[in-house]
C-alpha cells in the first residue's frame, strides 16, 4: 500500500512546485525568527526574497553540526519554547549532545513519514510491530512507535536490549515486524539459534533496520537467518529522526520524503552541488518543520541520488545505502560516536592531552569497543586501587557521555603508534 499516493507518486514538476512553495516559507520563517540563520544569510548578502524556488536552494548557507553545538541547547529553535512539545538529542562532537525540538505539527509530520516508510516496507494495519530501538532521547524508538500507531498497526514498545524477553514476546505475541539495528537483528538470530528456536516457528516477516550502516551481505544474512524481508530505513535527528527515507519492498534504494526534506548531493570538499547520480555528501533542507527547521544540513553521509522511477510506482527520489562518512564519526551499536567526545572526557580527567586509541571489533554480531589509554605520568599512581579506580571512572564517564559501554584498558606510554606526530585515534576492524 502507498500511504500518501498523491505525494509519493507526484510528477517531478508537481514535487518541485510543492518544494518551492514550502522552501520559500521556511526561509522567510528562519530569517525572521532565528538570529543565527539571519546572520548567516546576511553574510552571503541574501534576503528571503532571493529564494524564489527550489532551484535557488544552493544559494543558501550550509548548516553543520558545529552550528548546533554553538546554539546548544535551544538556540536553533525558531518557535518559543511554549510551542515545543518534545526534545530529542543525539551525540555531539564533544561532551554536549545535539538537541532538536518538535512542535505538535512536527510530531504529526514525523508520524506521517514513518507511516509512509512502514507502508513502503510492506507493513499494514494488521501487523504487530515490535519496536526494539531504544526509547528515550534517541529518536529511533519513539519515531517508529508513533508511526506504527498512526498506521493503525499494533506496537510493542519493548525498547532495546533484554534479548530473552524480545524473543519471548515474538513467540507469544506473534510479532510480525521487528524494528531494530541490523546488528541487533543478527544477534537475535544467533540467540534464537542457541535456544533452538526455528525462525519458521515465528510469525516474523519484515524487519525495519537502521541507525547504522549495513551491507548487502548483511542483508542476505539477516534475511536468511530470520526468514524475513530486511528493509533499510534512514534518518537523523537533526532532520527529524527515522523516516527521512526508507526502502520499498523492491529494496533498490531508500525513497526520500522529499516533500518534507529536500536532498542535495555536494562535493564534500568544494561544497559545490553535484549533478544527479553522482556520489557525494548528502545535504538536507527541511521545508515543513516548525520547531527546528534546518537549511542545507551537511549530514556527512556519502551516497548518491537516483531519480529513475521505481517499480513500486513511487516517484520519490531514492538514495543509495550510505557509503561512508566525510568526517570521523563512527556508528557503534546504532549510536553515533565522535572520537572528539572521548578526547573531551580524557581531557577533563587530566591536565595534558592524553593518548588513546579506539579499537572496534565485531565479536559474533555485536560491536565491541576497546579504548586503550596510555598511562602518562599524570595518570600513574603507585597504588593498584587508584589505577583501578581511574579505569572505572573513565569507563563510567565515557559510558555516560557516549551512551555505549567501552572496555578501558590502561597501556604503557609508548604503546600507541604516532604517525608524523599525530596519533592514529581509531582502528575499525569491523567487516560490515
Amino acid at each position, binding site marked *: 500500500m502507498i500511504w500518501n499516493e498523491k505525494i509519493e507518486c507526484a510528477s517531478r514538476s508537481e514535487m518541485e512546485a510543492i518544494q518551492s512553495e514550502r522552501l520559500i516559507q521556511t526561509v522567510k520563517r528562519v530569517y525572521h525568527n532565528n538570529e543565527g540563520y539571519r546572520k548567516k544569510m546576511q553574510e552571503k548578502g541574501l534576503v528571503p526574497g532571493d529564494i524564489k524556488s527550489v532551484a535557488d536552494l544552493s544559494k543558501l548557507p550550509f548548516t553543520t553540526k558545529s552550528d548546533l553545538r554553538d546554539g546548544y541547547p535551544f538556540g536553533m529553535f525558531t518557535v518559543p519554547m511554549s510551542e515545543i512539545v518534545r526534545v530529542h538529542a543525539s551525540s555531539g562532537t564533544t561532551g554536549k549532545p545535539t538537541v532538536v525540538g518538535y512542535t505538535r505539527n512536527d510530531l504529526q509530520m514525523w508520524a506521517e513519514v514513518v507511516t509512509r516508510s512502514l507502508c513502503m516496507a510492506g507493513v499494514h494495519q494488521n501487523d504487530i510491530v515490535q519496536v526494539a530501538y531504544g526509547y528515550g532521547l534517541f529518536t529511533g524508538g519513539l519515531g517508529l512507535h508513533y508511526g506504527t500507531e498512526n498506521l493503525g498497526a499494533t506496537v510493542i514498545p519493548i525498547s532495546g536490549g533484554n534479548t530473552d524477553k524480545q524473543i519471548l514476546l515474538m513467540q507469544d505475541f506473534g510479532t510480525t515486524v521487528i524494528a531494530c539495528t541490523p546488528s541487533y537483528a543478527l544477534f537475535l538470530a544467533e540467540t534464537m539459534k542457541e535456544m533452538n528456536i526455528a525462525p519458521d516457528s515465528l510469525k516474523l516477516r519484515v524487519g525495519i533496520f537502521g541507525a547504522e550502516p549495513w551491507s548487502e551481505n548483511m542483508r542476505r544474512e539477516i534475511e536468511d537467518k530470520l526468514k524475513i524481508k530486511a528493509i533499510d530505513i534512514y534518518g537523523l535527528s537533526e532532520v527529524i529522526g527515522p523516516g527521512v527515507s526508507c526502502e520499498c519492498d523492491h529494496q533498490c534504494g531508500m525513497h526520500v520524503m522529499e516533500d518534507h526534506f529536500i536532498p542535495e548531493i555536494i562535493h564534500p570538499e568544494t561544497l559545490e552541488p553535484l549533478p544527479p547520480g553522482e556520489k557525494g555528501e548528502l545535504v538536507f533542507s527541511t521545508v515543513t518543520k516548525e520547531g527546528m527547521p534546518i537549511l542545507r544540513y551537511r549530514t556527512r553521509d556519502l551516497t548518491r541520488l537516483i531519480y529513475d522511477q521505481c517499480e513500486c510506482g513511487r516517484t520519490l527520489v531514492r538514495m543509495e545505502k550510505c557509503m561512508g562518512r566525510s568526517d570521523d564519526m563512527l556508528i557503534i551499536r546504532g549510536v553515533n560516536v565522535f572520537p572528539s567526545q572521548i578526547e573531551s572526557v580524557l581531557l577533563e580527567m587530566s591536565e595534558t592531552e592524553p593518548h588513546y586509541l579506539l579499537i572496534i571489533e565485531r565479536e559474533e554480531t555485536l560491536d565491541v569497543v576497546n579504548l586503550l589509554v596510555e598511562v602518562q*605520568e599524570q595518570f*600513574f599512581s603507585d597504588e593498584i586501587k587508584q*589505577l583501578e579506580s581511574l579505569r572505572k571512572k573513565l569507563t563510567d564517564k565515557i559510558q555516560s557521555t557516549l551512551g555505549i559501554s567501552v572496555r578501558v584498558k*590502561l597501556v604503557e606510554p609508548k604503546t600507541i603508534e604516532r604517525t608524523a606526530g599525530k596519533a592514529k585515534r581509531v582502528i575499525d576492524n569491523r567487516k560490515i
Partner: protein
Amino acid sequence: MIVKQVSVFLENKTGRLNEVTQLLGDAGLNLSAFTIADTSDFGILRLIVSDPDKAKEILKKNKFSVQTTEVILVKSPNRPGGLAKMLNLLQKEDVFIEYMYAFSNSEDTAVIVLRPTDLQKCMDVFQNHRGDFLVQEGQYLF
C-alpha cells in the same frame, strides 16, 4: 629509614620486565628488592635500587611511566614470629599498610619494605619504640 622506591607501570606483556632490568643493569644500577603487583591487564613494578633518581630518569627517557614513592625500610629477626611482633606494634598504634614486601640478605635478619597510608605516623611509631626496627643508613642495602 625512608627510601625512595621506584614504581613502573607495566602492561602484562612478555619481555617488559626484562627490558626494565636490562636498562637498569646497563646503567650500573643495582636492585636490592622488587615486587610486582598485578591485575588482569597491567602491573606495577616496585623497585628498591641503588640510585632511584637515576633509575627514574633512565626509565622515563625510555618512555616508561615512572614514579618514586617514599617507603620505610625496617628489619625483623629472621625467625618464626619475627614479623608478627612488628605488625602487632603497628596494629596497636593503628597504622594502616598499603602494601609491603620483604627480602633477606643475611641468615639472621629480614628486611621489609613498608608503604603505610601515613608515612610520618608510621615513622613516629618506630622511632618511639625501644625495639629498633628501623634500618639505618648503610645497613643491609647493596
